[in-house]
């Protein structure tokens, strides 16, 4: 009995000093899962955390591993576990494999490269990379590959490279010497396995290292030599990943590895041709993962290279025709093949084959496959338009799909496929789609329809009908520039006025909910009310409307709760306009106008008071003032201030554009009408008071540009010319005027970033006023000379541009000299808007090609094709906007990439 007692005593003393053994991980999970409420769970966790903390504090080595594991579970539940970070490091340093395994797992979950603690791991990982057991090496590599920061990668790249190179021979030798096989039964097996495990891990780790520290790439170059000769698929796969990474990062590597194409083709061929291999088979296809990776590498190697593309044509055709397509795997490979064919310089036959594969995808039952088909068709539609066009009906069918992602893709693709031949049919489908689709699509769909209709409208009537359909079905979703655009369209088609006003009148009878529609309708009724009442409309069954009925409707718009303030403004102005078009209801109009003179809506009140004054004091001028709006010239830009907003926010922008009230009522009245049209550059109807109007318009532009950085002093003298560019460019007026203006153009600092400064000065030739001379001065404040400086400029075809040669192509450093270059622009046409695009390129600026092409397309006068009018384009890029009298300069610095200058 005695010895036993002593043991018991010993045990009690032992345990009273130490904590009792913590519960096991599974036990903890079980307990936590019994918690019925969140609060209960939290309480349990807090208790356990307290125990774990005190155990950590006591430096308990036995249970550390268990505690960290429990902590990881709590971490997954969303509880804080950062206090376990250092414990993970201790576990990693431990000699036991169990500890290491949990330690590395914990490190990957709890730590990342933004905490300095992780650097403490570097040494442990280094030791473990040289560890004798491959699984320890594997753990270390895995952790490095998952979370290694650039510092860590720099320190350990050497080890990785060594592993990558030597594991084949070195480790095999070690293996056979049996120095490492302490625990494992089969030496043979391990030797086989480890050779792959290590170089495989190492290769992916190298990928990670390259991602983090691209300069280290060359270090891995020798190691890649024999990688593709591997038989083991794991090694082969990771090697391909490594090669891909290197090729993507460096053009030198890309050129270097192009010679591997035949070898890759051979491997791929073997994969397709080889019979069934149980180890790598996925539903009848041999190692799809490897195949996809090889195809991707081929894509990168073949891009922009004729020889390599040539070398892979056959195999791509083979893959495209031989792959079994009943399962997802096969389609994954086909999809990758299609992407490769599209990206390299492949034969046209092959491209058609690829598009047909995508066409077949569209008919597939699997939604996923239909989705990728639409995505990739969207990518190729620009280059292979006709081939894609053949699948149009299938694509349009996808608009009816239940899945929103597929719908969106199908919609984008449908818009890309609209052209002059199919516009009627396509629009029918798209309007139907607009009617039935979810609200999230409506805005995009509506603007897509507007653009397509503008571009391909077969007739004016069709165009007006289409826009009206959109406004009736999705009125509250259209962007607010739709209203002025439609008004402009209607004004310009004189022969359609009667028809349009009747259609609009019918459309708003009894339904005022679609604000944009009501606005357009009010405007049209105001303008063409006489046509509506007279009922002269040949095209459709004329409706009989009386003057009172028309006024009833406008008044009920004014009263309706659903009308926005802007809509009421439209309605009131319309009523006012009708006072000159209707004969027997003038008194009623007077009454309505005077009622709104006391409206709480300030905007409305002001209008009403002004109109009232027009009736009372200036009645003789009224008919002239309220004359029908002239046909508006189509302007490509609505000014850079074009604000792309959705409908809810229209009020602010319209209010903002309202000029400040001035003493002269008639002028203001005209301005109001003009403003409603949304900032279009139209010549005022009435020749009175031109001095006020342009000045205020200039002010507004500046207002809207808000916080933009104006280095010149454009606000003062030059402002008037913005509104009336024809005066500047036409050469209609006398010589002195031009000199004045030329003097008034301030020079500006166009670009001042990254040490490069470019100034523009403007002069106007005295002999030929339509020639503008722009002098460019570029200086460089960095420590290095800028070489190969090129300044490019471009203008529309109707212009002539003379780019004189620059004084030099090198800008010396430290502002020690400048380059000057003169550009002469001749505008022979009497057009009121003109545009000029200037572009400068700097060497050593990481100017992305993709980015640049983008700008080019947007700027080369094909704006509509890309769905942007210049105005919107400006709003979209919103670089720095300078207002200069003759032109609008827009600078769009693409971060540090360089910049594009557009002059409007």
């Amino acid at each position, binding site marked *: 009995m005695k010895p036993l007692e002593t043991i018991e005593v010993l045990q009690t003393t032992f345990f009273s000093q130490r904590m009792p053994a913590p519960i096991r991980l599974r036990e903890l999970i079980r307990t936590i899962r019994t918690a019925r409420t969140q609060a209960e769970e939290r309480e349990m966790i807090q208790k356990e955390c307290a125990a774990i903390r005190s155990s950590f504090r006591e430096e308990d080595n036995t249970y550390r591993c*268990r505690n960290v594991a429990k902590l990881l579970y709590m971490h*997954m539940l969303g509880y804080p576990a950062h206090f376990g970070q250092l414990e993970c490091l201790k576990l990693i340093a431990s000699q036991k494999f169990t500890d290491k395994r949990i330690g590395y797992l914990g490190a990957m979950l709890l730590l990342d490269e933004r905490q300095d603690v992780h650097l403490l791991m570097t040494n442990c990982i280094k030791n473990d990379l040289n560890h004798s057991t491959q699984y320890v090496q594997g753990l270390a590599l895995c952790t490095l590959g998952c979370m290694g920061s650039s510092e860590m990668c720099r320190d350990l790249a050497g080890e990785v490279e060594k592993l990558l190179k030597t594991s084949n021979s070195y480790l095999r030798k070690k293996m056979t010497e049996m120095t490492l096989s302490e625990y494992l039964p089969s030496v043979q097996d391990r030797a086989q396995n480890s050779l792959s495990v290590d170089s495989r891990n190492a290769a992916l780790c190298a990928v990670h290292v390259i991602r983090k520290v691209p300069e280290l790439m060359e270090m891995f170059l020798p190691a890649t030599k024999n990688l593709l000769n591997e038989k083991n698929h794991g090694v082969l*796969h990771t090697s391909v990943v490594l090669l891909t990474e290197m090729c993507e990062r460096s053009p030198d590597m890309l050129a270097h590895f192009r010679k591997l194409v035949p070898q890759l083709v051979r491997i791929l061929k073997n994969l397709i041709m080889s019979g069934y291999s149980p180890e790598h088979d996925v539903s009848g296809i041999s190692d799809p993962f490897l195949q996809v990776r090889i195809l991707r590498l081929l894509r990168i190697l073949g891009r922009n290279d004729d020889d390599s593309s040539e070398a892979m044509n056959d195999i791509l055709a083979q893959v495209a025709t031989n792959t079994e397509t009943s399962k997802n795997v096969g389609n994954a490979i086909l999809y*990758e093949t299609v992407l490769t064919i599209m990206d390299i310089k492949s034969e046209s036959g092959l491209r058609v084959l690829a598009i047909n594969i995508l066409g077949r995808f569209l008919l597939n039952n699997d939604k996923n496959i239909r*989705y990728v088909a639409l995505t990739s068709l969207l990518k190729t539609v620009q280059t292979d338009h006709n081939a894609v066009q053949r699948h149009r009906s299938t694509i349009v069918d996808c608009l009816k799909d239940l899945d929103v992602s597929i719908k969106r893709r199908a919609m984008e693709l449908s818009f890309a496929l609209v052209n002059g031949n199919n516009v009627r049919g396509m629009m029918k489908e798209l309007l139907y789609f607009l009617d039935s689709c979810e609200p999230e699509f409506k805005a995009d769909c509506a603007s897509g329809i507007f653009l397509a209709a503008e571009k391909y409208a077969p007739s004016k009537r069709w165009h007006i009908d289409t826009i009206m359909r959109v406004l009736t079905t999705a009125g509250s979703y259209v962007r607010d520039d739709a209203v002025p655009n439609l008004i402009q369209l209607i004004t310009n088609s004189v022969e359609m006025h009667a028809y349009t006003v009747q259609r609009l009148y019918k459309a708003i009878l009894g339904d005022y909910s679609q604000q944009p529609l009501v606005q357009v309708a009010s405007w049209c009724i105001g303008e063409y009310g006489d046509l509506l009442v007279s009922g002269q409309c040949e095209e459709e069954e004329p409706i009989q409307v009386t003057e009172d009925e028309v006024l009833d409707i406008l008044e009920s718009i004014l009263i309706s709760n659903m009308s926005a303030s802007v809509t009421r403004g439209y309605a009131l102005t319309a009523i006012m306009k009708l006072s000159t078009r209707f004969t027997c209801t003038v008194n009623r109009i007077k009454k309505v106008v005077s009622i709104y003179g006391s409206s709480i809506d300030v905007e409305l009140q002001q209008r009403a008071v002004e109109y009232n004054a027009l009736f009372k004091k200036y009645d003789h001028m009224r008919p002239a003032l309220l004359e029908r709006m002239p046909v508006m010239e189509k302007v490509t830009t609505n000014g850079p201030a074009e604000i792309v907003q959705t409908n809810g926010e229209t009020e602010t922008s319209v209010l903002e554009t309202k000029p400040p009230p001035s003493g002269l009522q008639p002028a203001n009245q005209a301005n109001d009408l003009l403003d409603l049209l949304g900032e279009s550059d139209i010549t005022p109807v009435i020749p009175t008071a031109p001095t006020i109007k342009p000045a205020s318009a200039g002010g507004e532009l500046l207002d809207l540009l808000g916080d933009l950085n104006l280095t010149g002093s454009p606000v003062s003298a030059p402002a008037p010319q913005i509104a009336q560019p024809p005066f500047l460019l036409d050469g209609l007026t006398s010589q002195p005027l031009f000199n004045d203006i030329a003097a008034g153009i301030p020079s500006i600092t166009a670009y001042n970033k990254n040490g490069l400064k470019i100034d523009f000065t403007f002069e106007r030739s005295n002999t030929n006023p339509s020639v503008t001379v722009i002098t460019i001065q570029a200086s460089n404040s960095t420590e290095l000379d800028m070489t190969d400086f090129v300044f490019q400029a471009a203008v529309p075809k109707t212009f002539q541009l003379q780019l004189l040669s620059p004084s030099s192509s090198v800008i010396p450093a430290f502002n020690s000299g400048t380059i000057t270059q003169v550009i002469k622009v001749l505008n022979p046409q009497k057009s009121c808007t003109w545009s000029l695009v200037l572009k400068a390129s700097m060497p050593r600026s990481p100017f992305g090609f993709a980015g640049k092409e983008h700008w080019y397309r947007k700027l080369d006068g094909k704006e509509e094709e890309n769905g942007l009018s210049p105005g919107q384009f400006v709003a979209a890029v919103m670089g720095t906007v300078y207002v200069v009298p003759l032109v609008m300069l827009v600078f769009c610095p693409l971060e540090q990439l360089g910049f594009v200058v557009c002059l409007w």
Partner: protein
Amino acid sequence: MSVLLPIWFFSERDLFETQRLRLMLFFFPLLSIQQMQFMLLFSRQGKLRLQKWYVPLSDKEKKKITRELVQTVLARKPKMCSFLEWRDLKIVYKRYASLYFCCAIEDQDNELITLEIIHRYVELLDKYFGSVCELDIIFNFEKAYFILDEFLLGGEVQETSKKNVLKAIEQADLLQEPRHEYFNVPVY
């Protein structure tokens, strides 16, 4: 010397040909790097079961992303396709019984093969646990991580053979367990 233009004919590429090599080095990092960004496993109730991040993010961001994604994915109807665009990433997800497997990949990546990767992982879990169910993954989450780490490294597949992955895991398990049980040292 003066040059009369229409300049549009100058293609970018001509212009930059001379500087191409130098530019490329700057240009290439702008390309998206093809890589899986993260993988999440969560239950139908929205409980996270496993998370693996291949990009460094703060805990706060991770939680936000997880919450957002779990919500979006759970809100989708079963008949919808397995892909969705989310921020500038593509999300590929698939439901197996009560668990959702969800991966974020980059724009250039192949969604269909990502589905295969998810499927392969499920197969591995299934083989390892023997007809796996959610409970297996809850109670043995660390094993699920070990298998994932053996299959994917840094977001890339590292072993394409099922057999090899399982063999490696089993052997690593052998290294771990017998010794400890023998000496009766408590395992976690």
